[in-house]
């Protein structure tokens, strides 16, 4: 019910907002001599969801074409094979969102280069495809790749949007994510989110001697990389808004302390020098400050420090545990967790620590609040026996559970504020894994990671 309404409103918004596509990069007129691709007759299935009035949009995503098939560092087989891979990445991005019913390149005929700008309408219409994604890959003289992306409405026989990007061959997947973002945004009316990255903690080994390493990956799990070697326990990473740094907790010096790791140089530095343990780091939206918590003689409070170093400002001074602040998108407020009332609850305060007041009054404990990048919701962990991921309005009302696991915790927002990721722990084994669910509580799915995984932190959309 909720889901249907939400999706229906998304769709109507998108259709009403239809505007002529701005051509950011127009492809050259393809040679007219290229033979038209044979379009085989294969069914493109369109399913109606169980809720009734929502019909997923059928989208055909055939392989991207190329003007010149040649090997590149992105794919040794050539740009034609790369075009197939790009379409596959777009297909995988779009298939898990509950909005679309995409069909990928493995099940579709391959369009010719000249058809990218003039689709074979009849053939696609016969497949019941409502939408069609076309694109091309062109190897450039400078070694870079140019990728064009077109979204067509098959019924209207009309181009809805197009865009092109130039990337180094090693970054070819970003072009695919950009194209998926273009399609998603144009059809849903929501902001893009696929071209983004996730930092998290990779977990291996037995429960009482679990190795915890800092790791990063693209939003779809690709380009996975371990950052730390596991000799010291790493926890709770957060990407800086520009992706150049990761702030996280490490036991590398024996005691838990917050470090800023520089991805470019591989070096890290303490956020603040202290004999006391520091934990729960968070970036300010402008990337200039870091919020952290520090325990002094057992009493934990929240502090703010400039990223480049400098004097820490103490924002809370309750005798309880104050921890885990998260800024509102405009940077004016901080939502945080405190047990000053006797149990963990969610509070909000001005960015300077002023006007602290409790938000959560719905029973149980409430922890790990994260303000949505859109500002309209706060995600958190609701602890009432089990740990479940929930959201509420910034005024503390409208609490809704998004998950119903045994132990789901630490939500992080997709850059568009429409999906949350979190980690799920299995009883007894303590095995951890990353999951995501949308704001309606639908489309729950596990993310692929090479080993156990916890503490996901989703960064913003790349420029």
């Amino acid at each position: 019910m909720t889901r249907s309404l939400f999706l229906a409103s998304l769709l109507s918004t998108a259709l009403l907002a239809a505007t002529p596509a701005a051509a950011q990069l127009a492809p050259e007129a393809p040679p007219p001599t290229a033979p038209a691709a044979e379009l085989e007759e294969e069914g493109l299935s369109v399913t109606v969801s169980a809720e009734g009035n929502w019909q997923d949009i059928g989208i055909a995503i055939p392989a991207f074409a190329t003007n010149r098939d040649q090997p590149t560092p992105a794919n040794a087989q050539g740009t034609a094979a790369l075009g197939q891979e790009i379409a596959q990445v777009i297909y995988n991005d779009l298939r898990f969102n509950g909005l679309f019913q995409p069909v990928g390149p493995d099940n579709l005929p391959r369009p010719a280069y000249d058809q990218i700008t003039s689709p074979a309408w009849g053939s696609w219409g016969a497949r019941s495809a409502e939408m069609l994604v076309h694109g091309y890959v062109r190897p450039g003289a400078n070694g870079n790749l140019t990728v064009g992306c077109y979204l067509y409405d098959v019924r209207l026989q009309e181009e809805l949007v197009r865009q092109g990007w130039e990337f180094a061959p090693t970054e070819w997947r970003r072009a695919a994510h950009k194209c998926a973002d273009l399609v998603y945004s144009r059809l849903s009316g929501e902001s893009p989110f696929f071209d983004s990255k996730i930092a998290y903690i990779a977990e291996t080994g037995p429960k009482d001697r679990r190795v915890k390493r800092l790791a990063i990956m693209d939003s779809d799990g690709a380009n996975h990389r371990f950052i730390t070697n596991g000799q010291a326990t790493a926890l709770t990473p957060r990407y800086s808004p520009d992706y150049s740094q990761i702030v996280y907790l490490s036991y590398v010096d024996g005691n838990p302390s917050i470090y800023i790791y520089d991805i470019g140089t591989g070096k890290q530095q303490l956020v603040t020098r202290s004999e006391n343990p520091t934990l729960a780091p968070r970036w300010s939206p402008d990337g200039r400050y870091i919020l952290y918590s520090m325990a002094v003689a057992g009493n934990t409070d929240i502090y703010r420090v400039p990223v480049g170093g400098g004097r820490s400002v103490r924002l809370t001074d309750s005798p309880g545990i104050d921890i885990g602040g998260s800024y509102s998108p405009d940077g004016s407020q901080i939502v945080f967790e405190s047990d000053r009332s006797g149990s963990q609850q969610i509070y909000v305060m001005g960015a300077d620590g002023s006007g602290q007041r409790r938000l959560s009054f719905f029973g149980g404990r409430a922890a790990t609040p994260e303000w949505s990048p859109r500002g309209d919701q706060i995600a958190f962990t609701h602890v009432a026996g089990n740990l479940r991921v929930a959201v509420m309005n910034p005024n503390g009302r409208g609490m809704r559970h998004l998950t119903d696991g045994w132990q789901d915790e630490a939500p992080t927002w997709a850059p568009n504020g429409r999906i949350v990721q979190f980690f799920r722990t299995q009883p007894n084994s303590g095995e951890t894994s990353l999951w995501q669910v949308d704001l309606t509580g639908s489309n729950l799915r596990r993310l692929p990671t090479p080993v156990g995984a916890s503490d996901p932190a989703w960064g913003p959309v790349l420029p």
Partner: protein
Amino acid sequence: MKRLAVTVTAVSLLALGACSKKAPEQLPPPPAAPVQTAAPVAAAPQAPGMAPGSQGHFRQAMSGRDVIYFDTDQYNVDAEDAAALRQQAQYLLQYPNARARLEGHADERGTREYNLALGERRANAAKNYLIGLGIPATRLTTISYGKERPDALGSNESSWARNRRAVTVVVE
């Protein structure tokens, strides 16, 4: 030396007497041996390589009382914890060169960051109690492992009770 060992035995006897409701079910029973052997020699049995003031020696002397346990979300030191801490303090007074690290832990049924803070609070509760018994603060440090280093591996009440703990470790 011998006199001090007797003292340790006496304290442990007291501690046994004060034993109350909170011992988690899965804890091994406190050894009964020291009660029998009134001879002072047996108070802190010395295995080869177990130098007095070492962690191995300390653990053996404490026979389980190097750990104190807490109720869910709590960090107060109750009568049973106090008895264990008095025994620890006795040892630390006996070996003035020994330093101790108080390691705070939480069970798995809480969020990760909060549990780090909670473990720190528990470690400090133990530390402050030892300071109150005359151990100089300079000899005591704290560290929290939150829920990251469970002792009992099950996901049930008795395992969680064993994991909500503060462990005293002698560091040389």
